[in-house]
């Protein structure tokens, strides 16, 4: 009985270990794999407190948005319609992957500077 319990425990701990290793791989090493080959756009948080560009046109579907914080303050890219919330320290560059199938206008803003706003315009895919 005890032997069997021991065996189950070893097997369990081994599988948990593998699962954790897999998770680590997913989180760390393969970070960029899922964003490869997507249409890519760039949005910059400028030092003067504006977005560059203020209006960003993208095709419907899945795309990658590179976010660059060029200001000296922390920023938070936020848009519930786009399902995104991303905090970035000063000078940090990062990206988000967004999937939007319905063409239309989607507002986004800097949650740490709420008067800094922009619009994402999704146009039908050609």
């Amino acid at each position, binding site marked *: 009985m005890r032997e069997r319990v021991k065996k189950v425990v070893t097997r369990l701990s081994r599988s948990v270990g593998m699962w954790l290793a897999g998770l680590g791989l997913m989180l760390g090493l393969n970070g960029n794999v899922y964003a490869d080959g997507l249409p890519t756009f760039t949005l910059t948080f400028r030092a003067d407190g504006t977005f560059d560009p203020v209006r960003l046109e993208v095709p419907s579907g899945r795309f990658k948005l590179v976010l660059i914080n060029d200001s000296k303050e*922390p920023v*938070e890219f936020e848009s519930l319609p786009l399902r*995104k919330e991303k*905090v970035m*320290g000063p000078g*940090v560059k990062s990206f988000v992957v967004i999937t939007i199938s319905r063409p239309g206008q989607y507002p986004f803003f800097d949650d740490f500077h709420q008067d800094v706003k922009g619009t994402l315009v999704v146009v039908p895919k050609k």
Partner: protein
Amino acid sequence: MDQVAFIVWRESVEALLVIGILFTWLRTTPQGRKGLPWLWAGVFAGLGLAVLLALVLLGVSTWLSSEGQEWFQAIMALVACVLVVQMVVWMRRHGRTLKKELEGGMRAELDQSNWWGLLVLAMIAVAREGSETVVFLYGTIAAGDSAGMAWRLALAGVGGFATALLTFWILQLGGKLITWRRFFKLTEIFLLLLASALLVGGLDHLVSLGVLPTLMDPVWDSSWLLGTSGGLGKVLADFAGYRAYPALSELLIWLGYWFCVFYLLRRTGGSGTLPKGKSTVRVANATRQA
């Protein structure tokens, strides 16, 4: 300046409400008091995790990739959702069977797992918004041009946190002014709504990661009626999971959530109130015997 105080208040108030409610619940029963050290341990662990996450957001540390952060946020939100529901169910059952537990003392070991849940919940509640507060305050203060400016900004941050603490205190006062039964009922509804908001937030991350298909996106567009950029729509989004453009899969899971919650609470029964009348005497007896 006001903006600094407001943002710190907004970021800390959610965690303080959750911790405050759990604290008040635990304090009301002798059995619950045993959970208090676990609650505080969770708060401290949460502060540690918040600093670690903040280092990633500031770009100082890279232990989490961009995608990793998204996974981490998704997992934190979904785990917190499950733990909140578990706490609510447990409190209901706990209130009902308090007498038996005190007499038997047999469930002490079983409680151990609940205390771990409590610890993790407190930790996530603090870490989720705490990391953003750390980044915001650190970055804003670092950006302050002169030393005097930085001090004033730091002061505004402290002011914001103090306002959040005041909110916490008003909550505690509320627990004294209204009956325990009503306080429990109200906070229970609040926590279940908050858990649904955590669920939708976690699902948003999963959709972004491409793990959860949307089925149909969006099902409707209610932004003309109630947008989520500010005001009531934003509050409902943060505390009840409202979305102006919901995806079908998220909507179905949201409905499933409420179905499960109602089923669980029905099965658990009880209203979460303390045993009254005769049983209180028994409790007193049991305590004396112990």
